[in-house]
């Protein structure tokens, strides 16, 4: 479903991605980890074209991302994204946050969009917050609204960029629960996260990145019990024992 083939990306002189290759099947759940600055965000942001790559190929759902506007629009309609900082629209209510995309980009009628929004708010378990503004919600609730907002576009693929890193510890679980539920429903997901309990539970494939490269990939059992590279071992040591 997603095929990334020898992709490189530069920010000026700095190489953020170095010959990154990875295949993701439909329905597969991939968890990406690695030290800060290793290129995790850059990689997943290339998938929905928030960043453009300089070399290599990215094919999503049969569409090659060649920099054309058609490819861009085809892809972002099919790929949902959840950000570390939520990025909700502060001047809109929860319901308006959710219906904006469906009405303006998918051409749904207002009532149909509202029904859809309430359906997904139910799914992230905060239907009672529909008429509040983002700032009136806790961090965990805001992130669940952000997930619902992405789902309202009915994407085939969901990208998560450290969705719990900005949350207070007591709110992390409510967000991970929603993500686990989504994984169970068969959504294709790529999650950048350091929540290793979550990774063991839902991941089909683990990916470890360092210095813009994919250093190691594998199924979670092997990845956690028996990592091959020294860099990955050190990294797991650090985050599992603290």
């Amino acid at each position, binding site marked *: 479903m997603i095929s990334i083939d020898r992709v490189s990306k530069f920010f000026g002189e700095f190489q953020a991605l170095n010959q990154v290759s990875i295949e993701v099947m439909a329905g597969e759940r991939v968890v990406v980890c690695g030290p800060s600055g290793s290129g995790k965000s850059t990689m997943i942001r290339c998938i929905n074209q*928030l960043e453009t790559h300089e070399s290599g190929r990215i094919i999503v759902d049969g569409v090659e991302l060649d920099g054309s506007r058609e490819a861009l629009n085809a892809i972002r309609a099919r790929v949902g994204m959840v950000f570390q*900082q939520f990025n909700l*629209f502060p001047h809109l209510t929860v319901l308006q946050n959710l219906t904006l995309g469906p009405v*303006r980009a998918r051409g749904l009628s207002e009532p149909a969009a509202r029904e859809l929004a309430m359906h997904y708010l139910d799914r992230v378990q905060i239907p009672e917050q529909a008429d509040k503004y983002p700032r009136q919600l806790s961090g965990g609730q805001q992130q669940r609204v952000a997930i619902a907002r992405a789902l309202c576009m009915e994407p085939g693929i969901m990208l998560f960029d450290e969705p719990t890193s900005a949350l207070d510890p007591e709110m992390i679980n409510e967000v991970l629960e929603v993500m686990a539920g989504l994984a169970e429903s068969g959504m294709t997901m790529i999650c950048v996260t350091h929540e290793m309990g979550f990774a063991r539970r839902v991941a089909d494939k683990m990916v470890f990145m360092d210095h813009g490269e994919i250093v190691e990939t594998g199924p979670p059992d092997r990845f956690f019990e028996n990592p091959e590279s020294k860099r990955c071992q050190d990294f797991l040591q650090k985050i599992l024992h603290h």
Partner: protein
Amino acid sequence: MKRLLAILLCPLFLTGCSADWGWYVVNPGTKQGLTNLKFLLGGLQYTVLLSFTAILISITIGLLIALPGLSSNGWLRGFNRLYVELIRAIPILVLILWVYYGMPQISGLSISVFWAGVIALALSDSAFEAEIFRAGIQSIDKGQYEAAHSISLSYGDTMRFVILPQAIKRILPALGNQLVYMLKMSSLVSVIGMQELTRKANELVVTEYRPLEIYTILVLEYLVLILLVSAAVRWLERRMNTDERH
């Protein structure tokens, strides 16, 4: 605000009793005074109409000029800079004279005093509005663009539904300042014969020879008008902020 006005007015009326002042000229108790006062206030509608029309147009132009200034395309940004620098360099009075007396010679169309004033004021102000919009839009977190991108919003929808509503809320005080500035600058349109507040005062001074009293009234007219407008802008700001909290 009432107290402020009272303090400002107090010394005027105290000195008004002395021999140097001749308030009779605008004393509403006398027939001539009342006529004069009405004459002066007759300019108010034009000042207001001129300023509000001009600011609506200048805000529109300002926004249209600000957007290319935010583009990643160097030519578009260059266009924005050129416009802003050029317009900012022309004194308003010169622009008024040029639009009223100069422009008809190129275009072949004669233009009314009112619209010449509106065009000159709007053009001159648009450069400032463009800078205000640019700063306001730039102050919006880039995560807002990314979220809009991720839900497939077009550039136009992103601006209309996500960025501008937030930016406008932030620049409202600056827009209010521009409106006050515009109300004051509209006095310059008197030079081409626009019958606004300042022109009316000038004409009355010529017939009545009481510049002190008449220009004092003129000062007060602008003062009251601008204090009212400022209060309205602050009220609007408060309302927009409470909107979000409830």
